[in-house]
C-alpha cells in the first residue's frame, strides 16, 4: 500500500493526456479533483480513467445525484472513483437536464448498475444501456422522485381509509401539488 498520491500532480496530467478533449473543465478544491464532462463523452472518460497507466481508477465508489432546482441544466450526476494501486480519488461530474437520459457506466464498471438504479429512483434521471433500469429502494406504486428539491418531506399524498369505498385511498396534499 503506497502513501496517498498528490492530487495536484494528477490534475497536471489532465491537460496533457487525451482527457483534454473529453473534459470541459476541471478544478482542485479541498484536496479533491473534480472533472466536468459532457454526457456524451462520459463513457470515454471513465474508460480512459480506468485503463490509463497514470490513473488506474479500478473502483467505482459511488454515483450520486444532486438537484439544483433553479439551475439549467437541473441535475448533477457525480461519479466517485478510487484507485487502489495509486491511492487516489477523483470525481467526475456530469450535468443533466430534466427528462434527459445519459449513457450508463455499466459497460465500464459493473457496480454502476445499482447506483444508477438508485439515482433513477431518487431523481428520475434515466441511464440508457443499464440492463435493469427499474426502481430499487421505493415501492413500485410510488410514483414520485423523493430526493428532488420540490418533493416535500412529508410526501405528496395522504393515505386514509375511505368509508364508502371500504379501502385505503390516496389524496394529494392541498397546497403542495
Amino acid at each position, binding site marked *: *500500500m503506497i502513501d*496517498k498520491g498528490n492530487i495536484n500532480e494528477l490534475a497536471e496530467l489532465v491537460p496533457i493526456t487525451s482527457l483534454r478533449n473529453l473534459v470541459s473543465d476541471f478544478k482542485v*478544491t*479541498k484536496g*479533491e479533483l*473534480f472533472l466536468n464532462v459532457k454526457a456524451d463523452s462520459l463513457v470515454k472518460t471513465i474508460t480512459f480513467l480506468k485503463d490509463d497507466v497514470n490513473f488506474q481508477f*479500478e*473502483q*467505482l*465508489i*459511488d454515483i*450520486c445525484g*444532486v*438537484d439544483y432546482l433553479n439551475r439549467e441544466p437541473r441535475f448533477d450526476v*457525480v461519479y*466517485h472513483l*478510487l484507485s*487502489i494501486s495509486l*491511492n487516489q*480519488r477523483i*470525481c467526475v461530474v456530469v450535468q443533466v437536464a430534466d427528462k434527459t437520459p445519459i449513457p450508463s457506466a455499466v459497460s465500464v*464498471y*459493473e*457496480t454502476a*448498475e*445499482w447506483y444508477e438504479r438508485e439515482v433513477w429512483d*431518487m431523481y428520475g434521471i434515466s441511464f440508457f444501456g443499464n440492463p435493469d433500469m427499474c*426502481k*430499487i*429502494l*421505493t*415501492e413500485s406504486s410510488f410514483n414520485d422522485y*423523493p*430526493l428532488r428539491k420540490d418533493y416535500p*418531506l412529508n410526501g405528496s399524498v395522504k393515505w386514509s381509509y375511505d368509508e364508502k369505498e371500504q379501502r385505503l385511498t390516496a389524496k394529494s396534499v392541498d397546497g403542495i401539488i
Partner: protein
Amino acid sequence: MVRAVLKNSTLNTMQQTAGGGFFRLVLEVDGENILKATPHIGFSHFGIEKLIENKSYINAVSLLNQEYALVLAIEKLLKIKPSKRAAYIRVLLAELSRIMSHLQTVVSIAEGAGNSTPSYYGAAVQEKIMEFLELAGGSRLHANCLRVGGVYNDLSYGLMEDIVKWLKKDFLCFLDNIDEKLTEDRIFKQRTVGIGTVSSENAIEWGFSGANLRASGSLWDLRKAQPYDVYDELDFEIPIGKYGDCYSRYLVRMAEMRQSVNIILQIIEKIPEDFMIILDDTVATDNEKTVLSHSSKNIDEDYNVPAGQCYESTEAPSGEFGAYLVSDGSNRAYRCKIRTPSFAHLQAVPHVLKGNKIEDINTIISSLGIEAGEVDR
C-alpha cells in the same frame, strides 16, 4: 421408459441479516445448487438523505462509525480540526464499535455454519461494549458521541482504566476461547473453507472494500492509506487473507479485533491531557444572549457551513463508508449522499452465491458483513 423432465425451481426467500432488517432473495435452484440469485432491497428504506437535507447539521446523527464520515466531511468544509484529545477519544470509540461489529459478524458466521453457542457468549461481550459506549455518550447502540469539532464529552473518570482492564483480562480471553472453539473446529472449517470464494480481481471489480477486500488478498485499509484523525500516529498491522472464502473473512475479522485491542491500548498510553474544544460552545452567534439561551439558540439555529462540496470516507467495520456533502452556505446540508459498504457488497451477492448451495447462503451473507439497514438507508 419415459424420463421425467425436471425443471429448475424458483424460490422466493426472505433473508434476515445479522443486525436486523430484511431483504428478499429470489433464487433459481437446481436441487440444492444455486444457479441464480437476485436480491431485492428497500424494505427498511427510511430516506435518511432526505431527512439530513431537512435538518440542521447538529441533528444529523447516526451510529458511531456511520456518523464519523459525515462529521469529517463537515469539518473539512468548516476547515477545523478536533483537539488531539478529542481525536484520540473518537478513534478509541470507533475501534470499540469496530470490535462490536466484527464480533457480530463472527458469531453470525458461526451461527450460519450451525454453531450457535458463540453468539450467546458474543452477546454478553457486546453488552459490555455497549455499556462503555453508554458511559461515553449516553446511549447504547446509537452512541451519539461524535460532534463536529470534537466529541460530546470527555470520557468519564476511570472509564479508560476500566476499558483497558476489561480488554486485557476478559476480552482477549474471550477471543482465545472463540479461537479454540471455532478456528480449528473441523465442522466449522467444513462449512466455511472454500465457500463463497471471491478472487482478488473480482473483489476489486465488484466494489468490495474493507475486511472483505482484505480477505481476498488486497492490501488496502483506509486507516493506513488515507489516515484521518490520529490513525497516522498509531502503530498497527493490517491482516490480509489469501483465498477470499468465508473462512478467510472470518480470520481477517478475528485478527482485526486483536489489532483494535492493540490500537486502544496505544491510545490509552498516548492520549494527551489537554482541553477539548467543542464547536457548539466556541462559535458564538450572538454575544448579547445569556449563556443558557445562547446554547439553546445554537441547537435551534446551528452553525453555517461554507458553500462547497467534498467527499470524506472512513474505514467502517464493514468497509468504506463515505459521505459526499454539498453545502450552500446555510445551516443545512444541501445534499448529503451516504455511501455504504453493504450496498456494494449486496450487489455482488448474486456473483458470490452462484455455484454455492442453499445451506451456505446464511454463512456467505453474514461473512460479507451485510446489514439491510445499512443497504437501504
